[in-house]
């Protein structure tokens, strides 16, 4: 057992820390909604910093030097991700970095790798992970965006929705149906698509939290060379994506920074002549956050460590920390907004606004706990795969639907 970082890890941390502290302006304020700022200037700032980080290899530290990374180990990557999150840096290109790039590494052709990976590593491009559809949310395999083979390309028709849009898209990483088959997940393929291909159109789908879009496909021509991995194996390939999406050490570091900011606010802000820090309800809230931060730190590093030992240890034990975070996030946001009384309602820039409207933003975005699976789906997965509890086999679903249709109406 050892909870220390190694000397090399500490050295790396210092370097990355220095990168951020010397490149972020002293009047920088971490922002909640959208992460990448709401003004054009703020967005441009992040794109510029993203390029600088890319030049250092900090966006994709785990990738080989040849593909624009630093060739760092799983544990060292955890350090970079901690520092990045501590400073509240949310990259416009994060989906390419975290979600779309890794499977290109694993399943891509040499041509795909050389076309797509350098831009991601250098921080030049923005990818959207375009998976969700109106009828394929939690039921991810129910994809109906259709890709029909025609000569040397596919023709795509259909719709994606709730696609996170941290900036203008360059590429889409998309699941499309290439075969009608039971089970449904055996007929899905992955495509790497130019975001401005003729026939693609976008409309805004603003949410209480991060900005998302609807994407419509009207006879969009995608060359066959843009199919990623094997035809009809896309769903399985995408599972690799989910693994990447869920491994993180950054969450706790981001939570630490948030907690530091909140403590500072509660130190300066007074009520009844006393700092908010002395208010029992506020103390309770801060302690809850500190406990969750610490548990998340341990969980993040345990996951990173287990992943680094995967050859020896195999798949990790069932882990409910992510579920816990989702379950309590709404409570924490509510405690915070309520602790500001009537002022909690005020958004940033409003007269009398306190804490830069962060309580209101956090509270609004806490209404959504669905990214990487709703709370309910998390429970179902943990109960089934984690604890081995029984479930009704999918082959009965249609029969059950037929039996209950109209019942109770």
């Amino acid at each position, binding site marked *: 057992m050892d909870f220390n970082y190694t000397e090399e890890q500490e050295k790396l941390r210092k370097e990355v820390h220095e990168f951020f502290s010397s490149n972020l302006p002293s009047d920088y304020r971490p922002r909640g909604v959208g992460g990448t700022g709401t003004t054009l200037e703020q967005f441009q700032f992040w794109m510029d910093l993203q390029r600088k980080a890319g030049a250092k290899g900090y966006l994709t530290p785990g990738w080989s030097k040849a593909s624009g990374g630093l060739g760092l180990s799983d544990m060292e990557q955890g350090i970079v991700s901690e520092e990045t999150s501590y400073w509240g840096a949310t990259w416009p290109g994060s989906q390419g970095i975290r979600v779309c790039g890794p499977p290109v590494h694993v399943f891509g052709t040499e041509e795909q790798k050389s076309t797509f990976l350098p831009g991601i590593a250098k921080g030049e491009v923005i990818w959207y992970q375009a998976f969700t559809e109106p009828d394929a949310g939690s039921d991810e395999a129910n994809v109906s965006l259709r890709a029909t083979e025609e000569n040397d390309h596919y023709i795509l028709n259909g719709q994606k929705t709730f696609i996170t849009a941290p900036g203008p898209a360059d590429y889409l990483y998309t699941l499309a149906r290439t075969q009608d088959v039971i089970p449904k997940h055996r007929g899905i393929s992955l495509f790497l698509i130019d975001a401005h291909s003729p026939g693609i159109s976008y409309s805004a789908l603003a949410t209480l939290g991060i900005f998302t879009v609807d994407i419509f496909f009207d006879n969009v021509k995608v060359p066959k060379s843009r199919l990623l991995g094997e035809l009809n194996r896309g769903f399985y390939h995408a599972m690799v994506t989910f693994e990447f999406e869920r491994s993180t050490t950054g969450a706790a570091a981001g939570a630490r920074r948030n907690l530091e900011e909140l403590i500072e606010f509660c130190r300066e802000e007074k009520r009844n002549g006393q700092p908010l820090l002395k208010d029992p309800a506020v103390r309770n809230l801060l302690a809850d956050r500190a406990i969750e931060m610490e548990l998340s730190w341990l969980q993040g590093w345990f996951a990173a460590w287990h992943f680094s030992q995967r050859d020896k240890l195999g798949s990790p034990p069932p882990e409910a920390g992510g579920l816990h975070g989702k379950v309590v996030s709404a409570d924490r946001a509510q405690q915070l907004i309520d602790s500001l009384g009537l002022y909690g309602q005020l958004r940033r820039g409003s007269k009398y606004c306190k804490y830069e409207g962060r309580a209101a933003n956090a509270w609004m975005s806490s209404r959504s706990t669905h990214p990487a699976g709703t709370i309910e789906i998390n429970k179902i997965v943990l109960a089934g795969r984690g604890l081995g*509890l029984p479930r009704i086999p999918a082959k009965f679903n249609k029969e059950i639907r037929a039996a209950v249709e109209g019942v109770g109406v």
Partner: protein
Amino acid sequence: MEFTFTEEQEMLRTSARDFLETECTEKLVREVEDGDEGYSPELWKKIADLGWLGLVYPEQYGGAGMNVIDLAVLYEEFGRTMFPSPHLSTVVLGGMTVLEAGSDAQKADILPKIADGSKIVALALTEPESAWEMKKTWDPEGVTVSATADGDNYVIDGTKLFVHDAVVADDILVVTRTKTGGNPADGITLFLVDAKSSGISVMPLITVAGDKQCEVAFNKVKVPKASIVGELNGGWAPLSKAMQVATVMLCAQMLGAGQRLLELSVDYAKTRIQFDMPIGINQYIQEHCVFLLRDVNGGRWSTYLAAWKLAEGEPCDFEVSVAKAWGSDAHEHACWCAHQVHAGVGYTVFDGVVPLYSRRGKTLQLYMGDTAYHKEKIATILEGWPAPEKPKAKPLGLWEEVPDRGWIPEWWNEFDKGT
């Protein structure tokens, strides 16, 4: 960073589990509860032979020279089988305080006797008033029982409450106030007193756990100066170190108990048939099982982080309080979930094992501070956190108060949205 146990720790875990599953049966736990002593002397002798009473003491005192992480591994197994014994009182709170602060003569006299099973110690800390004022219960502020110098002796006077294992203790480690005013921690003196000294009366209380927590009244008890452990007025520091270890051991026990509750509940959910199906197919039941997993898993590494820091001799007030604040709440919730899965079967006192865990769990949650107590400790630590670090590049004025009016970022207006 390494989330591993040593080979010795794995062996200790396996052998402890095998031994306790055979020796510390549910039947034994119930018998001990019904008895007057709160432990099984035969089993106590056996674990002395296994070296579990001297586990963390140096070899010169008859110990095995192991550390707090090893001890936590053992305590997880204690928790799993609800092992009823004065181990925490004797080995951790009594013995480790003596090891930390005692004179060479005291250590040479007392520790080997603890290690060979011939001496049981109880800690008399909490008092009727301090137990009622929850913020003071485990702090020096709460200590009012006085010890007054009288020639070569001291006279201890006052009442201690919720003293674990006092009915069977050979010695009682009494936490007294020998000075008032100023810093409350300054003025605490520890006495290791023969439990049979005249003027001491012990009365067991009736608790939900059926364990032996007592009222111990000291009626002008005369004790020799030589029975002071550590410095006059300087008893709090060594005691609080032992209390930190005890706190982490309680977390380890709750972890072991919680793990068992999880196994029992998942097993019951898979095998209990209602409406022609195992009840575990219902998502309401699954939810209880998943939360049990959350409650148990969440505490594993926070417990071992605290144990590791204690073993390394690093300051760990924050880590210990995080482990106990989470652990106590999570354990209460874990017991609740297990009850829900087991329903009526989880409610029967004589047949069901869940109520046994539940009742005994409450003591683990409260002892050495419950969640509210440790959250307040955490909040006090957070007050001392530094301000967030400011970056150093020249200001750009980009983060002026731009009103958060809309829901759509500006770049969207420039974006080519296609047809």
